[in-house]
């Protein structure tokens, strides 16, 4: 077993062009971001967005006033009813809309779905969470809702401060996270390379493996193990380079970041493996397909233009829940924002699930196979 893993690693790692695309390229990209975006840490200016507001609750209103007056995050434009406000959002006289029933809602237009509104969304979200906690406590044991308790929870001021102060530099950090997502997505090439050897109609080595008495699932597991080791290594190198050479801050949840990276890479590798098993024809065709799919999924996940992400989330929400690129980037974003922990977990579980599904599809296709032609 150990021998096999070593051989597999050797076989994969000697492919220099694969090592370039899956390791060197994301590092180069991160380096490029570093050169291009260093300036942004210092020179960025903060602009506020015009936001329509339909809020009657005085507590919420004072919170919004604080966002406007102290942090210049928003410029409020009050509306008496939601219909009018929505119309304003439609004709783009406001960039976003904040409404309140039992919690605060943020609606944005597609054109203004920028990082600014993401920050705002995050701020409002954390406000809602705290509000909910107080309400729950009131319902179960009102005596415990002391001013001190409320103070401890409604620490919104703190949150807002930290975000407003560092948001320009953190927005830069997001670009670096994109390179990690890219590293994960390129792992599909490893899967593709491995899968080829198991198929008699794709490589003559496949003939030997297929006539051998070793079960397919063992061979597949061995492949996955080798890919995982290589990918973990690549991820470690990439993260170390960013942390120690580029000095990119990783926030408070590096463990979660690494876990997402590892699972994301495995998922993507399994996708490549499955594509290799399902798509016959020559290698160039599959590499082109995989690159294309990678770019397309990244595009849908909003890696190139964030508006696309919201379009997908609005009109085809299922897609963003099964798109590996979206799952990976969303998680990185939430980890960076330090929010949505339950969604992060949900995404991780979906990713594991998809990995298993892809592996099963590949296995079913290869198990006890006889070919129509070789």
């Amino acid at each position, binding site marked *: 077993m150990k*021998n096999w893993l070593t*051989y597999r690693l050797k*076989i994969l790692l000697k492919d220099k062009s694969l090592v370039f695309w899956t390791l060197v390229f994301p590092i180069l990209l991160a380096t490029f971001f570093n050169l291009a975006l260093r300036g942004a840490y210092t020179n960025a200016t903060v602009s506020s967005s015009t936001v329509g507001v339909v809020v009657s609750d005085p507590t919420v209103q004072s919170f919004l006033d604080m966002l406007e007056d102290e942090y210049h995050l928003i410029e409020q434009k009050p509306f008496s009813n939601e219909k009018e406000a929505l119309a304003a959002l439609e004709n783009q006289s406001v960039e976003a809309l904040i409404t309140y029933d039992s919690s605060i809602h943020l609606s944005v237009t597609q054109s203004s779905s920028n990082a600014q509104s993401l920050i705002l969304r995050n701020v409002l979200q954390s406000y809602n969470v705290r509000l909910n906690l107080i309400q729950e406590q009131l319902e179960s044991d009102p005596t415990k809702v002391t001013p001190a308790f409320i103070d401890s929870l409604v620490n919104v001021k703190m949150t807002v401060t930290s975000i407003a102060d560092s948001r320009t530099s953190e927005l830069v950090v997001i670009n670096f996270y994109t390179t990690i997502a890219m590293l994960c997505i390129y792992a599909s090439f490893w899967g593709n390379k491995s899968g080829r050897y198991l198929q008699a109609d794709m490589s003559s080595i496949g*003939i*030997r493996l*297929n006539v*051998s008495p070793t079960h397919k699932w063992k061979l597949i597991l061995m492949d996955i193990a080798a890919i995982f080791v290589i990918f973990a290594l690549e991820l470690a190198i990439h993260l170390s380079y960013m942390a120690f050479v580029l000095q990119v801050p990783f926030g408070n949840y590096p463990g979660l970041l690494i876990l997402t990276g590892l699972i994301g890479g495995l998922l993507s590798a399994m996708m490549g493996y499955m594509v290799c098993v399902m798509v016959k024809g020559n290698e160039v065709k599959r590499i082109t397909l995989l690159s294309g799919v990678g770019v397309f999924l990244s595009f849908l996940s909003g890696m190139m233009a964030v508006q696309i992400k919201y379009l997908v989330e609005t009109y085809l929400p299922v897609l963003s829940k099964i798109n590996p690129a979206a799952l990976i980037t969303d998680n990185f974003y939430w980890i960076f924002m330090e929010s949505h922990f339950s969604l992060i977990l949900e995404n991780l579980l979906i990713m594991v699930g998809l990995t298993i599904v892809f592996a099963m599809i590949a296995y079913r296709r290869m198990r006890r196979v*006889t*070919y129509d032609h070789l």
Partner: protein
Amino acid sequence: MSVLEIKDLVKRYGDFSAVDHFNLTIQEGEILGLLGPNGSGKTTTINCLLSLLTYEFGSIHLFGKPMKPDAYDLKQHIGIVPQNVAVFEELNVNENIDYFCGLYVKDKATRKAYVQDAIAFVGLEEFTTFLPKQLSGGLLRRLNIACGIAHKPKFIVFDEPTVAVDPQSRNRILEGIKDLNRSGSTILYTSHYMEEVEQICSRIVIMDNGKQIAEGTKESLKALSQFGEVIKVETHDLSDEQFLELQALPFVFKAEWNRPFLSVYTQNEKQGLLQLMQFLSDRSIDYVSFRNEVPTLNDVFLEITGKQLRD
């Protein structure tokens, strides 16, 4: 016991039958030569018997049991040397053999010994750390063989293992196959070189257009030939009248005359040589050279199919 039994095998690619109601039985201990020109269906037959290819009709039994993709107990005892070299470019000679042997032999110590045996068998001792791309064509073929036989299988399929191998290495490989056979392996050997097949095979099946067209020992196959032998004479003295006279003689099956070369195919009898010498000396015809040849499998093949075995 029959090691391999193929009955009425049909494999079609669309309307084209690559293997057409083909039968083949190999008994334990045999070296069976499957001889056929390019495209006759040898590799296709092998791929079917290994359960790599689906086929339309027929049955295949190995060691008395039906061969299926999940017949792992049967697969354990099969060795395959595919027509196209199948080794990892990234692994060296030793690692390649060890990798493929490891698919069959789990015990590390045993495997180590087996790998050594295989390396010695193909004579690659001095190249164990070479990568495939550093090996010459012939050495690469030898590695291909080593990867297929290292686990000491009971039944070994060689699909044209000597293509692009020089005569010396080829001889070594052929002798090696005989050794494998002596140590207990049953062998299916395909080729389109009849000399090879004549040299090592105990029985020969000739295949063309997916069909079996002849079967037997090399002697019995040669007996299929319509003529006994061919006598080739170089002479400047033979006249055209004398050639016509010669053609009419009873022992002559067929004669060709391209001055100064005379070829006489004798009827199936032993006296041809003497009778021809008698004929020449009676007429005081001098000759530069005189030799006789027995028919080759190629001649047999030519007669049966009307085409050459080799391109």
